[in-house]
């Protein structure tokens, strides 16, 4: 029975960790919240650390609704089965009413459909970008329990269409990378262009690592478009642009942020990029965003450079404040219903730090609403729980990449609502 001895040893090891456990709770009561994040992936750890940082800030200011917060963190291993099981365990065994996560849309989605919505638990994702969540919300299947602080690909697509309109292009061909990001943004930009009355002559998928894209480029040339839109990565983008220009295509180009690279400029050649305009989502130009960068740098000995950190920070902050507003013993639906009180544009402005957190609690206790000025700006959710983001356009120059124009959150929001 050596096998059993092995398992016994493994259990013993796990039990060993138990004796190392420390009780952080100093206050009378503790409220548990759950987090399901891919901590076994290198870029997932800082996202979880950021969420824990916010929980620490909340506890320093005296907790939430009079109780200390304990964040129970579970790893998803980027495996939907493992993530769903972890979420279910948090909801059933730990009784959490608020779940942060997950990162991958392919993990967040089954958690939403099979755990949080049936159990009535609020789910706040920092980083899932798929448009499928928007569609699910529009069908009314999320019960208003799902929020995310990561802007969908819709922002960049809309700004791309905005550029085409400003340049006065009448017809555009779209090239997109053949993955979830590219499929998403390629489809959205085509819709937006058509909404603006610009003809989309072709939408062409570009598969990675092909030796030549002559067939795809020829296909696009048939429609004789005035400009092209590219949601491509530098390697394929370089190839496509080279063949496009050598076959006599137009030099009017618009591209998503993935082509923002010196490598692309050098390999294509500056002489062909005179009419090239890129788009990107931007960090907001607000004091609150700078304050977050400073606080983060002080805490973690380095700036927040990984993906999703500012989003994770805001997700946790907003969720915890909503939990405070909902009061002790609130259900998931109660908490979700209070999110609007935290992100009310007419509310009292509060900053995204311990001081702001404490101030927000005071205002909420008095029955007021707050406008949370977060690491990603003054976050506002639409009716589907989605957020928008400010954007920039940029161009290539001899010396590198230069920002052309900053489009504030309000301008982006106004433009996007004018499209619908």
């Amino acid at each position, binding site marked *: 029975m050596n096998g059993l001895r092995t398992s016994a040893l493994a259990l013993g090891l796990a039990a060993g960790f138990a004796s190392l456990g420390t009780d952080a709770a100093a206050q009378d009561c503790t409220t548990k919240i759950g987090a399901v994040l891919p901590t076994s992936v290198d870029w997932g750890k800082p996202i979880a650390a950021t969420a824990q940082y916010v929980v620490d800030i909340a506890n320093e200011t005296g907790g939430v609704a009079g109780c200390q917060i304990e964040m129970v963190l579970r790893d998803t291993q980027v495996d939907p089965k493992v993530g769903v099981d972890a979420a*279910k365990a948090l909801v059933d065994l730990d009784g959490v009413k608020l779940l942060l996560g997950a990162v991958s849309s392919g993990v967040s989605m089954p958690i939403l459909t099979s755990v949080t919505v049936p159990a009535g638990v609020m789910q706040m994702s920092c980083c899932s970008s798929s448009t499928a969540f928007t569609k699910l919300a529009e069908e009314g299947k999320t019960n208003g329990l799902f929020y995310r602080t990561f802007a969908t690909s819709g922002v960049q697509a809309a700004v791309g269409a905005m550029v085409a309109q400003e340049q006065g292009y009448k017809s555009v061909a779209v090239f997109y990378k053949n993955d979830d990001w590219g499929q998403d943004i390629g489809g959205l930009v085509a819709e937006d262009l058509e909404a603006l009355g610009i003809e989309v002559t072709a939408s062409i998928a570009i598969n990675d690592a092909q030796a030549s894209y002559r067939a795809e480029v020829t296909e696009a040339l048939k429609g004789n478009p005035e400009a092209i839109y590219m949601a491509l990565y530098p390697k394929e983008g370089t190839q496509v642009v080279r063949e496009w220009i050598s076959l006599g295509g137009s030099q009017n180009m618009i591209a998503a942020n993935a082509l923002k690279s010196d490598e692309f400029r050098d390999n294509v050649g500056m002489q062909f990029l005179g009419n090239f305009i890129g788009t990107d989502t931007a960090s907001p130009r607000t004091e609150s965003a700078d304050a977050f960068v400073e606080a983060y740098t002080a805490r973690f000995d380095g700036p927040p450079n990984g993906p999703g950190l500012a989003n994770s920070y805001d997700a946790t902050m907003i969720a915890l404040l909503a939990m405070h507003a909902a009061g002790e013993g609130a259900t998931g639906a109660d908490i979700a219903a209070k999110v609007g009180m935290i992100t009310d544009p007419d509310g009292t402005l509060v900053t995204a730090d311990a001081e702001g957190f404490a101030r927000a609690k005071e205002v909420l206790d008095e029955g007021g609403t707050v406008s949370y000025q977060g690491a990603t700006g003054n976050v506002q959710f639409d009716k589907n729980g989605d957020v928008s983001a400010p954007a920039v356009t940029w161009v290539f120059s001899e010396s590198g990449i230069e920002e052309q124009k900053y489009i504030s959150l309000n301008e982006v929001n106004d433009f996007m609502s004018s499209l619908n």
Partner: protein
Amino acid sequence: MIGIISYLVFFATVASILSIAVLGLNLQWGNTGLFNGGVVAFFGAGAYGTLILGGTPQAGQLGGFELPYLIALFGGMVIAGIVAWVVGLLTLRLRHDYLAIATFGVAVAFENVMRNSDWLGGAQGIRGFERPLREALGNGFSYNLAFFVFVLVLLIATYVFLERLIQSPFGRLLRAIREDETAAQSLGKSPSRIRLTSFVAGSVIMGLAGGLYATFYAFISPQDVLPILTFQIWAMLIVGGAGNNKGAVMGTFLIWAAWTASGWALSRFAPLEVQLYTGSIQFVLIGFVIVGMLLWRPQGLFPERLVVSQSAKTK
């Protein structure tokens, strides 16, 4: 208390679904000696097939036929069977590791086709499946309990079917082919046909597991059919004991319990600083169990019971 029961039901449902897939692999590997390295392709074919047949219509996607649940589930099994038949015709002349590599390639190709085909959900996957009987049972615990009973019935049915199959003359033929194909051929049997039959039957069972999995989550995406699932299902069979159906089921429950319980124990008991590394620690612990198993008990917890044929026993 109700929380614990609710979680256990949930856990047992997932473990039972995985058990069905492991039983399918046990027919292929444990009894026939077919090294299927592409379990996820057939699991996925069943999952996608079921959701396409039984789901609600989505813009720009194939499917949404809204067939009754049992018919959709059966359709998913048929689709898995068809995929297995085509793959089997092409690859079953390969032996051992060559077969493993070829089927692994099929599984990777399957995932990529799903990821790239917008009309099959693309990278975003297929959603919009309405759970059957949801109005009657509600969304909560009673629904999960009913679904668990349904899965359990299917698991028992699969188990009994396979137990009877391997005790039948056909089962002996499978083992004969596994042990010595040439000898079986010399007795007038057709190994290639039997191998194909076993491969398709095992894959249909995996397809059933896939269909149950997708309908339980009401969602399937390419992320569900990554090679890690093939690895997990193999680990379950190896630990439980290849060639023994009871071992296959026990191995599944054990490995899935270790996989989930280690995550739970670490999140609960590990100190705060270690919390961020629980994922990595968990991988080490699980790897430790599997390696230990292979070192000290390679035949698995429940080794195959070698049966001497009945005529020899009576002497």
